[in-house]
């Protein structure tokens, strides 16, 4: 299947998911409410891309993943993964996708790690040679060798997550969905997981859709990011474009020779914080820092300075606050 230049592995066209929720009102009366968990989402993910999918809790991230894997049937719209309609052919699709839920292990608690892999081999009918290769590669990159004979219940959270990610890749999935893969992990484990995902994506061209609350995951792995809020996409584009979209502000931090009153009279910037000889000035992200630095240096005894990019978390928080669809 090497037809089009950029084969679209995931296609969503106006996909909706409406839940009917019954809520108690008064003692006995129950009233039906419609909750539009996913409210008309459209996007494409070409084969081999690594995309971040972020949004606040309850925005519709998990619902989207559940529809993409066939667990949930959409209420409307069109959905294809690798050309398959997930809701209709869930078990056929299952062979071609891998899923890791950060907070839910699929490993067998009381059995050695390798037994879980053996079950995957049989359940997915992975050919022996493929299985050996894939397992060897995962064991090498994720440092699993010393863990294979250890019962899963004795693994640390980070070890278990590495184990889970390997389990999701043994059958050569074309798409890998990762839901919070680094949640609760220490810095070293996080770095290892990210490194591995980068390798898998580069080596096998596995398409990756990643939901996370840790934006460092996105910054280090994904060039493209999609932001969902209230069931709608509010941003879909490059990560660096997100800053501008969020109308972020940059910060100029200056160290003066001595304590002075807040800096005034610098056009386009305002001082937001003073701590001893150090002062913080904010200015719009789109504006150049050079004139500001010149203006400060001209009138104040400047010793040192640095410019900070807007914090991506703040940017996204602003996007959410900005409400529905405003940015697109």
């Amino acid at each position, binding site marked *: 299947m090497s037809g089009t230049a950029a084969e679209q592995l995931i296609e969503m066209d106006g996909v909706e998911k409406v*839940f*009917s929720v019954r809520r108690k009102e008064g003692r006995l009366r129950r009233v039906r409410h419609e909750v539009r968990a996913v409210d008309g989402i459209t996007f494409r993910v070409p084969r081999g891309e690594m995309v971040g999918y972020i949004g606040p809790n309850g925005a519709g991230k998990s*619902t989207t993943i*559940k529809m993409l*894997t*066939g*667990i*949930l*049937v959409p*209420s409307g719209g069109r959905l294809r993964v690798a050309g398959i309609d997930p*809701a*209709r*052919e*869930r*078990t*056929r699709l*299952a*062979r071609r*996708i891998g*899923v890791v*839920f950060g907070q*839910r292990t*699929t490993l*067998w*608690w*009381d*059995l050695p790690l390798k*037994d879980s892999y053996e*079950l995957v081999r*049989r*359940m*997915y009918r992975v050919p022996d040679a493929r299985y050996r290769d894939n397992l060897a590669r995962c064991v090498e990159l994720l440092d699993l060798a010393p863990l294979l004979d250890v*019962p899963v219940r004795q693994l640390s959270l980070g070890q278990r997550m590495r184990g889970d990610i390997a389990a999701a890749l043994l059958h050569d999935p074309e798409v890998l969905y990762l839901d919070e893969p680094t949640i609760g992990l220490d810095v070293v484990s996080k770095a290892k997981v990210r490194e591995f995902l980068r390798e898998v994506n580069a080596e096998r061209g596995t398409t990756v859709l990643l939901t996370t609350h840790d934006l460092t995951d996105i910054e280090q792995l994904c060039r493209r990011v999609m932001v969902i809020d209230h069931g709608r996409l509010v941003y879909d584009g490059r990560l660096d474009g997100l800053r501008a979209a969020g109308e972020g502000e940059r910060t100029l931090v200056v160290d003066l020779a001595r304590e002075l009153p807040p800096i005034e009279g610098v056009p386009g910037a305002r001082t937001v914080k003073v701590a001893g000889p150090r002062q913080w000035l904010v200015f719009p992200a789109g504006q150049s820092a050079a004139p500001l630095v010149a203006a400060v240096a001209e009138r104040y005894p400047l010793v040192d300075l640095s410019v900070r990019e807007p914090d991506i978390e703040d940017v996204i928080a602003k996007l959410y606050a900005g409400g529905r669809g405003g940015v697109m």
Partner: protein
Amino acid sequence: MVSGPVAGPSAAGGAAAGGPATDRGGPDGGGGPSRGAALAQGLRAYGLIVRMWVRSTLAYRTSFVMTAVGNFAASGLDFVAIMLMFSQIDTLGGFALPEVALLYGTSSSSLGLADLLLGSMSRLGQRIRDGTLDTLLLRPVPVFAQVAADRFALRRLGRITQGVLVLGWSLPQLDVAWTAGRILLVPLMVLCGAAIYGAVYTAGAAFQFWAQDAAEVQNSFTYGGNAMLQYPPTVFSKELVRGVTFVIPLAFVNWLPALLLLGRPDPLGLPGWVAFLGPAVAGVMGAGAGLAWRYGLRAYRSTGS
């Protein structure tokens, strides 16, 4: 080690397992593997998962031995109670001890078999509540097989062992002229009974897609039904007997075929051929339970809770 009990009833329980084995009901227009292939795939997955649970259980060997013995002893106490009762009386509702033992042994063996193979389905509600059912929906094998094999507990062999022992003890003492047909009737009765109980387990699990704490309702039909079927139908009121004949046809588990075997008249005055309907009843109940399962799974997949 479990291949014996697994291979046998899965064929007979095919009525219960066959329908729902393809979980891709409803929205599926067609296509995909045939029904037979889906059944074979489901049974294979069932076997794979059962093996994992057995090995998990054996990771705690002592605990396993103790619960298995405990299970055997606890279900055995039921029959000890019946034997004690017969130290004071000669017949119960016109039935002598070996005849009651026949009822006891057949119902216990049937329930034990269904419980071993499908009993874990009553935990479905818990999987729905904690969201782990979703991980089963991500695998390329039928959900029904996975739910049925979930937390497979070898200790449940205790009930079957005990039921078969009581049955074996009763058979030579019965006043029955054994013909080939009558001999064949005994295992058929146990297998059909297991299929009927299995259908109840399946329907009970299907109901949990809507009401996650409905396991108790199903328990009242399985364990409750078993407690009733251990005694002769003649000691119960006619209304109750009617209810378990026509409404929830548990009477086909052992009452009707056992009456036929013992050459006793049906307390409801039904013609003799009704007793042969066991396999048909099991088939119909299995198909109904399979449909319920399909609807339940479809409802779950459209509501997600």
